[in-house]
């Protein structure tokens, strides 16, 4: 199981070497992995359908309660099958689509890593593990959208997608941590059983909103949907895989996953129904306003995501069955349609449907399978999409909240989608042949394999409903609903309200389609308006504000003046320390000086004098020398109070510091007075303040003992456990060796920093 999840990462590492080895056949070879994963997960289906969820356990961070457990139930298995199944065709397809691309290896590294991350996401049983994989999908998605990294638009879109999803991801992290704290466990299967306790908790609303923020951004819900169409800057295999079939469904997955625990809450139902419904309609409508094939498909994906969210929100058994069917159906036809869009783009050189026509004769297979997939998208019998859509309408009719609104939105979305499906299936393939930038011909088998198989499955499962029924849909419904539900799917339900609504949608859809090319100009105006005032404009405003804020903050905090940095650091540190001291301990000004000896007094006086000279002298060398005196006096203090190790260290460090300072001193310009009297007084005040706080702190420390000192442990165990009599050293190299290891790495970093500051300066570059 662990291997099944991580094998994608392993193959990703090997991809750069495999690509030159297999040349043009590399896609077929890579596809062997997801194909075998598909078979592996498919072999689990009967077991899960019969015996319910299973947990496979691996320990990861036992101390933090983070496990690498995998939960295998209907929902995760359905997703795993989609990821591996569609992944197989995407990898084959990409081999054809990106044939000869110089960065093909990088593409496979990224997409395989993505696949593994997605697999981990849907199979994780632990919230933290789930989140780790969740973020991994965001990062791989970012890199894949920006795959054509020389194109500034692609980079911008990639960054936009990353910002939106990662901002949501942060909210999600907060939500998951609160959820884990409230539930007392990060284990999903335990959380799902403690739904009522969760809903009674005071933090429940906060948890819910945070998690929804994460899911809504990931699954492109209104008003944060705009990143998804922009993500179409990615190569088509990526769009088909990440931004249609898998990643964008991660949010939907998490919502479905948590539904048994959250579903009872009214806020949950309201939010999901409202945002899902609005997204469904917005997506469908926006799809209508575009002529770019990929954009149309992207918006119709938003429609599907909205529908899925809404169905989870409705929460009745029918809605859950509709959810499972819609999820499955959508992945099949949308994967196929995206690949068709990629074929058309690849073969004709344009993405605009209005610029294509009459390709049926040249690309007969593409035309047929595009039509089948589009029929499923439109929701016409006898395809699987029809079953899903009928169930969706039926579910909407029994929605507990906002029923009328949802019904209107659903019918409206249905009409738009019908038109979009018709445009995709008819415009490029029928009518007179239009000239295109490239000479079109039928796609190679590697690119046709995906659309053919997926579209055929849409048809096959529509006709043979009993295959998915008990094997796939029933376990999914059980997982999402929280308890088993009997599922029986059929194409013909008799003449009922959903069927009549479908008929209405069909008629309206045909009507709008006939006028499609005529209403385009009006729609273009509307689109411009939305571009100026829509949510995306808000995103740009926020980003602009962020840049401005950062500029302002940098000019204040990091203005390049050393003195300024020091003041900020010193003031922050000592004000906080001083405040804590006052708050917790109060002042203590009295110090028992009895028993002090003459030589101790001498050292103390020496210290004070050296400090005074260092800060008052006008000679640099004098300042360095008196700093040295200060340091050696401190070393003397250590030795007087029997800490020889510290004493020796201090002496050595002091020696080297003085040497370093002297070396640096030669590099500085002459000693001139650059600061005003005001600045000098200010600096003196800050310095005195810091000194005062430290003095008070030291006075207070004498009598504070918050925790039991661990010295006793060290003294006791140094010889027995550490085999050493020098406790300081035993602590350094044995008891707290990990700290020391960290410290020597810090040393190394500091050395590299200093080295590069000295060595790599502009003038040094000119010389070489």
């Amino acid at each position, binding site marked *: 199981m662990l291997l099944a999840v991580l094998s994608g990462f392993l193959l990703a590492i090997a991809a750069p070497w495999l690509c030159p080895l297999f040349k043009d056949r590399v896609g077929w070879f890579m596809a062997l992995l997801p194909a075998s994963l598909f078979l592996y997960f498919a072999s689990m289906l009967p077991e899960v359908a019969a015996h319910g969820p299973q947990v496979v356990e691996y320990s990861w961070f036992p101390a933090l309660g983070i496990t690498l457990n995998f939960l295998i139930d209907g929902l995760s298995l359905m997703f795993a099958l989609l990821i591996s199944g569609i992944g197989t065709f995407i990898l084959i397809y990409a081999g054809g689509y990106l044939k000869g691309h110089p960065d093909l290896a990088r593409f496979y590294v990224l997409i395989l890593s993505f696949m593994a991350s997605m697999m981990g996401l849907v199979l994780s049983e632990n919230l933290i593990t789930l989140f780790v994989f969740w973020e991994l999908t965001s990062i791989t998605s970012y890199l894949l959208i920006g795959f054509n990294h020389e194109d500034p638009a692609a980079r911008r879109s990639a960054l936009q997608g990353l910002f939106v999803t990662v901002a949501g991801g942060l909210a999600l992290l907060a939500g998951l941590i609160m959820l884990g704290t409230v539930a007392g466990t990060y284990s999903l299967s335990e959380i799902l059983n403690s739904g009522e306790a969760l809903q009674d908790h005071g933090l429940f609303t906060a948890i819910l909103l945070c998690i929804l923020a994460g899911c809504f951004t990931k699954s492109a819900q209104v008003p944060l949907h705009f990143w998804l169409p922009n993500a179409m800057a990615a190569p088509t295999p990526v769009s088909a895989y990440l931004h249609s079939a898998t990643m964008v469904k991660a949010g939907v997955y998490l919502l479905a996953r948590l539904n048994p625990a959250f579903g009872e809450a009214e806020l949950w139902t309201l939010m999901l129904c409202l945002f899902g419904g609005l997204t469904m309609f917005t997506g469908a409508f926006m799809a209508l306003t575009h002529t770019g094939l990929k954009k149309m498909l992207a918006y119709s994906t938003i429609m599907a995501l909205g529908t899925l969210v809404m169905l989870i929100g409705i929460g009745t058994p029918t809605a859950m069955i509709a959810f499972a069917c819609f999820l499955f159906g959508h992945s099949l036809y949308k994967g196929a349609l995206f690949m068709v869009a990629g074929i058309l783009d690849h073969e004709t050189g344009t993405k605009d449907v209005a610029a294509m026509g009459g390709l049926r004769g040249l690309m007969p297979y593409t035309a047929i399978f595009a039509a089948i997939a589009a029929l499923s998208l439109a929701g016409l019998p006898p395809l699987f999409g029809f079953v899903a859509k009928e169930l969706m309408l039926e579910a909407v009719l029994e929605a507990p909240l906002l029923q009328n609104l949802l019904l209107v939105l659903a019918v409206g979305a249905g009409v738009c989608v019908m038109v979009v499906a018709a445009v995709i299936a008819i415009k490029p393939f029928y009518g007179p042949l239009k000239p295109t930038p490239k000479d079109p011909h039928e796609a190679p088998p590697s690119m046709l394999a995906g659309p053919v198989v997926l579209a055929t499955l849409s048809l096959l499962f529509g006709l043979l409903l009993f295959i998915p029924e008990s094997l796939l849909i029933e376990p999914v419904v059980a997982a999402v609903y929280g308890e088993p539900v009997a599922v029986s799917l059929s194409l013909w339900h008799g003449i009922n309200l959903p069927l009549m609504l479908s008929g209405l949608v069909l008629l309206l859809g045909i009507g709008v389609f006939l006028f499609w090319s005529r209403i385009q100009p009006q729609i273009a105006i509307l689109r411009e308006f939305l571009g100026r005032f829509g949510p995306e404009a808000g995103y740009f405003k926020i980003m602009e504000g962020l840049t401005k804020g950062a500029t302002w903050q940098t000019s204040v905090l990091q203005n390049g003046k050393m003195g300024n940095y020091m003041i900020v650091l010193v003031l922050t540190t000592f004000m906080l320390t001083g405040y804590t001291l006052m708050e917790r301990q109060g002042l203590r000004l009295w110090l028992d000086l009895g028993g002090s000896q003459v030589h101790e007094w001498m050292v103390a006086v020496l210290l004070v004098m050296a400090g005074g000279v260092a800060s008052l002298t006008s000679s640099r060398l004098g300042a360095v020398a008196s700093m040295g005196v200060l340091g050696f006096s401190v070393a003397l203090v250590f030795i007087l109070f029997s800490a020889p*190790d510290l004493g*020796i260290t201090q002496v050595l460090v002091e*020696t080297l510091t003085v*040497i370093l300072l002297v070396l640096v001193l030669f590099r500085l*310009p002459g000693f001139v007075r650059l600061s005003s009297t005001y600045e000098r007084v200010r600096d003196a005040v800050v310095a005195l303040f810091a000194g005062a706080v430290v003095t008070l702190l030291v006075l207070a420390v004498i009598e504070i003992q918050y925790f039991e000192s661990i010295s006793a442990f060290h003294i006791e165990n140094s010889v027995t456990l550490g085999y050493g009599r020098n406790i300081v050293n035993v602590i*350094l190299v044995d008891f707290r060796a*990990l700290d020391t290891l960290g410290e*020597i790495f810090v040393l190394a970093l500091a050395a590299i920093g200093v080295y590069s500051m000295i060595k790599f300066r502009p003038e040094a570059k000119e010389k070489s």
Partner: protein
Amino acid sequence: MKSNTLILQTAAIYITPLQLLFSVFLLLRGHDEPGGGFIAGLMASSAFVLYMFSYGVTATRNLFKIVPVDMLALGLILGMISGLPAMFLGQPFLQAQWWDIPLLGDATLKLSTPLIFDIGVYLAVIGTTLMIVVALMESETDHPSGNGD
């Protein structure tokens, strides 16, 4: 920067090796008596710095069998490696391991992963210090006038 004092140069010839020897002594006895990798590293660095002051940076560079940056890297690697034996034995990373190797007569040689770790610290400290000092000294020779920028 290079001093032309005969006294310092003559002294450095004798003191530098002694200091280095002493640093190894500090390193090895560190587990039981005052000393240890950190102190020994500083001691060794100051030995080289003394030599550098007497004979200049080029002469000191010629003295190194390993350049400071490699010493630093070696130190980090040793530090990491010393944690591995414990992992192979199924214990937490960096858990100390001890081996007593009998020598001639009654003497035994106490070898341990903390010792390897300490040597790593020793090398890392020397590497860091020398890297910085050498860089500073060399930039010194680059700009004899000492004008800043």
